[in-house]
């Protein structure tokens, strides 16, 4: 089957193409070069006047795993406002803040997104994350495996085990839990909370292990690099949401000593403590540090006004945040001497000074970071806002007068505390394509996604150019997934199942000897029952695994 997409305006930053009229051919799911000679085109789409990009990739979105399901269970009243009926080809479910798995897949696809990564896969709960994601149709998915508050790593660090031993453990864990990256959440802090520590600064020791967040970050960032895992260590920093935490963030950037590091939902970590309310924007300083330190990448975690729910591995911070729960109900959990979670519903209000300034801080960050290859567009779904707000966010970034109109409506004191109005930058379509496609694929190390050159899978989104960028991005004309047309005029017309992206870094098999003993002594499962087998992903005939290459010639 040969498909031809004819005459569209192509934005493919992966190939350096910034708005060029170009035909695209798809054969057997993948993009191919123009066939030579006389070849029968089976299906041609006339894309004159249309904008063509690769399928979008959300590199940080909470779409599967225990905390997401707790969030769903906690909020029946939110689901009731957004029921989704079944059709002949789609399943029923619910939407808004914590949508059902099927609706997650449909709504992402209907916005032109074809891939999403769950950033907080606890090894102890990885099975659940994969089972939930297996029920997300159309999209590809993957997960970052959470380490850094797990007893095994911390006791290794206390015992001053060498980096090689730690690398083996990290590689073993990412394989056992089937991930594509390593994530740290409040390094050592989730563990510290279980010992009744209520905060943990970058250089503060965990009271039991005597290990600091700084040391954990360095150790894990080194492991990720030495193992050749393409995605840099994915870091949810210390002191999330705490006024003045920008200094922690700046310190974290310095402390990593040039190692690759991804700072996630940076907006929540860019706060000063100036002004009448002791809460101010640190976006300018943070952006400056990002601009200077090329080893650093970020995603923003933009907040949007309205009801949502926050779901995080950071039980320490979420416990503190429960005071802001709206509606007033919340869950935290300590999990398996491995990790934790906290789920707190939030209602961000534009007339609340702090919320209004958070909104501005996120936008300042987007606009002040120079290099779109090092910043990803996220709301930390659903923590800052549901992913369905992306088209609105894109308009805020691309349309200065729209942005300033919105700015003029927020809490007046917050308006005074942001320099947003003085920032003239408007994102271009090419920059949006970098942030949501090529840059995200590069950052995660996806070998054949996020681009439109021959060899890439046929994940393609086609929009009608529209000066109202929100309208443009919320309703693509066509979305192709692996070369199959799945969305037409913003509606799912066909469903399929995506793959699960993983990496398989090598480890010394002898690592299991100690781990087996450790599991028998302390944990609640046998080692062999803990490891997720390939079968578990593929046995129902829908799922598949795609293994991505390691970096820098690491075997």
């Amino acid at each position: 089957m040969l498909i031809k997409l004819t005459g569209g305006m192509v934005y493919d930053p992966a190939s350096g193409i910034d708005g060029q009229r170009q035909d695209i051919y798809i054969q057997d799911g993948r993009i191919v070069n123009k066939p030579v000679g006389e070849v029968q085109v089976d299906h041609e789409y006339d894309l004159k006047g249309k904008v063509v990009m690769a399928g979008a990739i959300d590199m940080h979105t909470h779409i599967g795993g225990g905390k997401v399901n707790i969030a769903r269970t906690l909020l029946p009243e939110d689901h009731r406002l957004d029921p989704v009926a079944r059709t002949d080809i789609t399943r029923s479910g619910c939407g808004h803040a914590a949508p059902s798995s099927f609706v997650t897949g449909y709504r992402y696809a209907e916005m032109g997104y074809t891939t999403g990564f769950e950033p907080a896969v606890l090894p102890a709960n990885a099975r659940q994350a994969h089972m939930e994601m297996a029920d997300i149709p159309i999209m590809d998915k993957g997960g970052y495996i959470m380490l850094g508050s797990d007893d095994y790593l911390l006791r290794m660090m206390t015992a001053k085990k060498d980096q090689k031993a730690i690398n083996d453990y990290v590689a073993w864990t990412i394989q056992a839990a089937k991930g594509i990256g390593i994530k740290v959440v409040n390094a050592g802090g989730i563990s510290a909370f279980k010992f009744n520590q209520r905060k943990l600064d970058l250089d503060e020791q965990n009271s039991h292990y005597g290990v600091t967040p700084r040391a954990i970050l360095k150790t894990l960032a080194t492991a990720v690099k030495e193992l050749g895992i393409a995605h840099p260590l994915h870091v949810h920093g210390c002191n999330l949401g705490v006024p003045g935490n920008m200094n922690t963030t700046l310190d974290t950037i310095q402390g990593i000593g040039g190692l690759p590091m991804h700072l996630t939902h940076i907006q929540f970590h860019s706060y000063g403590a100036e002004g009448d309310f002791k809460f101010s924007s640190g976006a300018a300083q943070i952006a400056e540090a990002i601009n200077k330190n090329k080893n650093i990448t970020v995603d923003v975690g933009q907040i949007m006004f309205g009801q949502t729910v926050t779901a995080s591995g950071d039980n320490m911070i979420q416990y503190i945040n429960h005071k802001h729960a709206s509606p007033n109900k919340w869950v935290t959990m300590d999990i398996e001497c491995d990790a934790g979670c906290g789920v707190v519903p939030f209602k961000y209000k534009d007339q609340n000074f702090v919320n209004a300034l958070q909104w501005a801080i996120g936008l300042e960050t987007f606009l002040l970071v120079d290099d779109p290859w090092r910043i990803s567009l996220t709301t930390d779904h659903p923590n800052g806002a549901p992913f369905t707000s992306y088209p609105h966010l894109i308009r805020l970034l691309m349309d200065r007068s729209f942005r300033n109109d919105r700015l003029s409506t927020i809490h007046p004191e917050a308006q005074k505390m942001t320099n947003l109005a003085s920032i003239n930058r408007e994102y271009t379509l090419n920059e949006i394509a970098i942030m949501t496609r090529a840059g995200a694929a590069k950052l995660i190390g996806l070998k054949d996604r996020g681009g439109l050159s021959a060899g890439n899978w046929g994940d393609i989104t086609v929009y009608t150019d529209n000066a109202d960028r929100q309208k443009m991005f919320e309703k693509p004309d066509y979305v192709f997934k692996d070369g199959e047309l799945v969305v037409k005029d913003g509606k799912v017309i066909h469903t399929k199942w995506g793959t699960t992206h993983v990496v398989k870094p090598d480890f010394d098999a002898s690592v299991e000897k100690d781990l087996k003993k450790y599991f028998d002594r302390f944990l609640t499962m046998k080692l062999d029952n803990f490891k997720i087998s390939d079968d578990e992903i593929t046995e129902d005939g829908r799922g598949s695994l795609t293994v991505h290459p390691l970096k820098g010639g690491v075997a």
Partner: protein
Amino acid sequence: MAEITEVPSPFCGIGTDDLTIQVEGVSLKVTKNGCTVNTPAFEQAITDTGPRVDGKKVSLDVAVAKAAALLKDTNQPVIGGCATDVNGMRALLALADRSGAVVDNMNFTNARRNFLALQDSGWINTTLAEVKNRCDLLLVVGVDLEAFAPRFFEHYLWNEESMFLDDTGKREVIYLGKAPSGNASTSPTGQKAQVFECGVADLPEVVAVLRALVKGNPIRVESTGGVAVADLQAIADKLKAAKYSVVTWAAGALTYNQAELTVQTLSEMVKDLNSQNTRSSGLPLAGKEGDQTANQVCGWTTGYPARTRFSRGYPEYDPYLNDANFLLDNGEADALVWVQAFNAGAVPPVTDLPTIVVGRSGMTFEHEPDVFIPVGTPGIDHAGHAYRMDNVVAIRLKKLRDSGLPSTAQVLSAIEQAF
């Protein structure tokens, strides 16, 4: 004969995965680490090997076609039981979505006590490895824990080593409400649990007083529900002094109206403790016969727990009105599908409505259902996944024998396809 080790159990809820099972043909024998719950559940013999329609043996295809035909003619089918593995629940929900059924897990009226508290105010909970390594005080409220899970203490309290306690034998166990039926809660060094008994109906008051004492509120009576307030004060003091106390209850044992308020009081008490500079966590006991599995899979598929209807084309949750028994008794349902792959003794409610049973081999019925399709048991006849009581860890169930019985997922998917 084969011997299979490290076998995980879907029956006891606490996720034991150290059983050794001998397999001879289709007979199983638990040779190591069995218990009164797991051993009979694994060893139960296969008696029904093929489906029946109107009591007559038929092929699977015929039974599936008959089931689909029965369902097609209905306005409000109800799918009860919902006791199966993750793939079974996936297929069950697909069938419910297709047929506009009500889905109701058979233990939901018990689980509702937890869900109502969770959905009203939330909780701070923990998981079994945290209990095993961290818990220094276990408060057991209103349940005979060792009858619920015979190996709980051996596995999670009297473990020889723990990460953070020098001597697990020094942990304290306090029973409030119901007394233990045996000595499993006595530590290896002979320290017995403290027991403060009261009637189950007195629990709301006793628990409310305990929470008040944790908060430091004055109590003017000397005893409540037969428990001395001084004793409750001592429990409150111990909870406040503990480094990591765990409060456990079983929703199924709180057999009185509005028991969700007791769950809520306990959960709010745990929150109160955490705001007084110590750590404490709740631990609801559940996880039997796929109840957590049903709620988890229904949770991600619909947004709601497993008492949800699809009759309007989209899922609607109602913890009271979608009760299968209520719908059957009220004449609102016009067909019953009963799915129970774990327990042959858990038969469907008696009804005159067309009934399809997808059940564990060995079920005996007062009224023969219109269609009976015996299915394999997850973790015995086929691989699968089930959730443990702590609702975080999903265990990977093994296939132990070749019985030829189809899985719940295969049968329900076939019915959906034929629909």
